């Protein structure tokens, strides 16, 4: 999928959780959302995008995707 599309969605999600004063927690919430609602191929692709520099990802989104990258090596595409 187009990385712009995935980045935009990840940033939209992050904006909701961003109001948490604890930004680490905010990132964990975003991560939880990605795991619960994103098809594995989308997760793999955003991880790939992150590894390629992660252009466009907001801070919280980037943090969440970083954790995702640690947890699951890009598998299914």
């Amino acid at each position, binding site marked *: *999928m187009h990385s712009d599309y995935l980045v935009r969605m990840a940033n939209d999600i992050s*904006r909701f959780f*961003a109001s948490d004063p604890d930004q680490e927690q905010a990132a964990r919430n975003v991560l939880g959302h990605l795991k619960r609602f994103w*098809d594995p191929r989308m997760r793999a692709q955003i991880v790939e995008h992150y590894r390629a520099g992660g252009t466009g990802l907001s801070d919280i989104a980037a943090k969440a995707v970083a954790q995702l990258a640690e947890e699951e090596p890009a598998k299914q595409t």
Partner: protein
Amino acid sequence: MYAQDYIDPGTPESTADELVTVEIDGVSVTVPEGTSIMRAAADLGIMVPKLCATDSLDPFGSCRLCLVEIEGRKGYPASCTTTVAPGMKVRTQSEKLTQLRENVLELYVSDHPLDCDTCPGNGHCELQDMADAHGITTSRYDVGGRVHRDTPKDISNPYFAFDPDLCIVCSRCVRACDEVQGTFALTIDGRGFDSKVSASQNEPFLESECVSCGACVEACPTAALTEKSIIALGRPESTVTTTCGYCGVGCSLKAEIKGETVVRMVPNREGHANKGHACVKGRFAFGYATHADRIVKPMVRKKITDPWREVTWEEAIGYAASEIKRIQAKYGKYAVGGITSSRCTNEETFLVQKLVRAAFGNNNVDTCARVCHSPTGYGLKHTLGESAGTQEFSSVMKSDVIVVIGANPTEAHPVFGSQLKRRLRQGAKLIVIDPREIELVRAPHIAADYHLQLRPGTNVAIINALAHVIVTEGLTKDDYIESRCEVDSYRRWKEFVADPKNSPEAVADITGVPASLVRGAARLYATGGNGAIYYGLGVTEHSQGTTMVMGIANLAMATGNLGREGVGVNPLRGQNNVQGSCDMGSFPHEYSGYRHVSDEAVRAQFESSWGVTLEPEPGLRIPNMFEAALDGSFKALYIQGEDMAQSDPNTQHVISALSAMECVIVQDLFLNETAKYAHIFLPGSSFLEKDGTFTNAERRISRTRKIMEPLGGYQDWEVTMMLSNALGYPMNYTHPSEIMDEIARLTPTFAGVSYEKLDRLGSIQWPCNEDAPAGTPTMHVDEFVRGKGKFYVTEYVPTEERTSSRFPLLLTTGRILSQYNVGAQTRRTHNVVWHSEDRLEIHPHDANVRGIRDGDWVGIASRAGDTVMRAEVTERVQPGVVYTTFHFPESGANLVTTDNSDWATNCPEYKVTAVQVVKVSQPSEWRKRHRELTKRQRIQRRAGGGRVSAQPHSPSE
């Protein structure tokens, strides 16, 4: 007249707790206080003669036919207007009473032709019944030719006719229009023998304020107001109780039929959702089911540019299965998916998601609720614990303050709209939060106490401002919050909304709503007694749709407005089975009953029942499927009863995605817009052709019953089954009741549901299980489903869709009464006389500066695309905002909507698109292309041997 099989006890039921015992014709009967003598007698099976009374209306006491004698009282009181009193002794029969009644009847008959044999009401007319019972065949009264003979009939309404000659001026129609429907379109003009019923200012029905709900026709005791279908087809032979296939109110209807032909649909007075009312869609617009455009033979083609080829079911199903297998072999098992429909039954929806999960072997299943109420599911599940509305419709009759947000019930949920209006006429207060002046803001005998006419896209700012007032002015229900909610979450939320940045004054510039109105509305909601919130797609279809749903739940919890009658948070669902399709596990991440696919215990249960290993990861949502199709990883889609090419946003994008797939299977009634990009077409069946259940907006499960054989040969669930079997995953149900049994086995909230129980109780509101064997009208009574209610911080994030010098106006979209969703059904009925095209509403100021006059063609352009439609210059919209409906494909309203979507659920932001509007003389490129494509579709069909197969009784042939 009411349904043929209905026995009318004459006056409404009393709901008083106190009981009163009386004696009628020597027999004792105990009834609630406030019951009329007429109704108490009916309880004993004694039917007192009557004409002006009927149990859907308040008693009126005008015909004087229902006179009785009461021991110890003088005269002959009317039994419809006299209520029971303890120890009362009533006589309904005596010589004197008979004589009085005969006199009355003779008077009526003197002004009424007695050609019963040729009258369409013959056999189902209260006047005929009364006259027969009293042996009246002629009248002694000479009326000097004053009878209304030869008065012209009013046949302007496409569905019913008014014959003044048959009218006995009982006022039932007038009262039905006032009391039941709330439109106040009818009056009785003149006096005595000269009096007659007239619509609005003596206009034909069609041109009057009448909205064609049919309540007057249902109430009329004679054939003065009669369905034209009865005049054409004669008296029905039998009755089948079923459920409306249109909106989320889910009205119970009685189909009165002759053979397999529906003569008329009458609202069921015993229907739990609608209590004897219906609207122009459910009541009259069922002719699409036998419309000549129905495709009744399967068709296939290799490429979407090829002509369609009619084939046998075996060939079509075989081809579909082989394509899915081929694609999975070539591109992997995740390259295919399915879409369930909110227009199909629970059983059909359950089966499609089972097909995807068990036979396709992935979780790529989604439903059209994605584009309407998915934020409701997410928002309410997270805050309250259950993805559904909290009340039953009749709860509104106990509300003191009603808040309507982003919904237009009188157009989109008409029967509930009428009930709501009834409550408002009784004195409940009303707050409307909507960019547009919807009908409720100012209707006959109704005026909103507050109309917060906000700018599209600023819902969350408004809900935060309302909360700010409630919190900072100390209007919260602290003891309720303390005992029922997560106190930590409340504290965080309270701190957040109390921040001055959320005050009505601070957000006034954003929302466009004066702070004083927001403050007034907040105080009213928090302190006005039972506060109930009803909301629609104006809440969900935003980039912050889910946030807003959470904001609504926050507000209700903070004011203690959840967990009893008269309060609550109530999503008004668009299509009839939106609730059901969500309940049935249509979302890619959850099974029926909203349980996540990653939940091992739940998954294990499904695995053992279905005999397969299931995927633990969520699948693709509809918009993800489109993206994946464009990147080449998604290649085949089975679409049951959906028309994404018309209903989904950014049409061009949808079309590109569909065109990129190798196998699109469309199962539908008509060759719809999506079918233009399909390779396989499987004939669907209408709600008249199937057994099953629908679940309405109040979680009410009701039966739909088969009235005619499916025109294509199979009900939709049978088609899914054939496909599954062809794929090698056996499904062998013999009746939808067996599918429901499986649903009940696998879904805790449905555990107690069965067809037998549905037949016995009429309908059931889930959760229905051991704890609640007859269902659950009100949710979250002692505690929230999630245990403690959870507050969420709802920061306002402006949408990225902003006006600019290029696109200076905001477009928002909605619905109209006579049309339904993409219009595939209603456009194929006489409903087009009310609405034959989508129009763009524009404020006079915005129209003026653009030189646009009412009726002009205008071009509407956004960054996604452009289209043209005609303008309606109106103050219903505020300056800077334009509005349209999306019922007609040629207007291409979704060409301009963008692919912005809700952060949590990807529900599209239909309600906010920055646009420019200019006067044009040319049809848009889209209209030209659409015309060409439709023409091509027709040629492709004809070339392939397809033909228009005329069916009987197609109203708009």
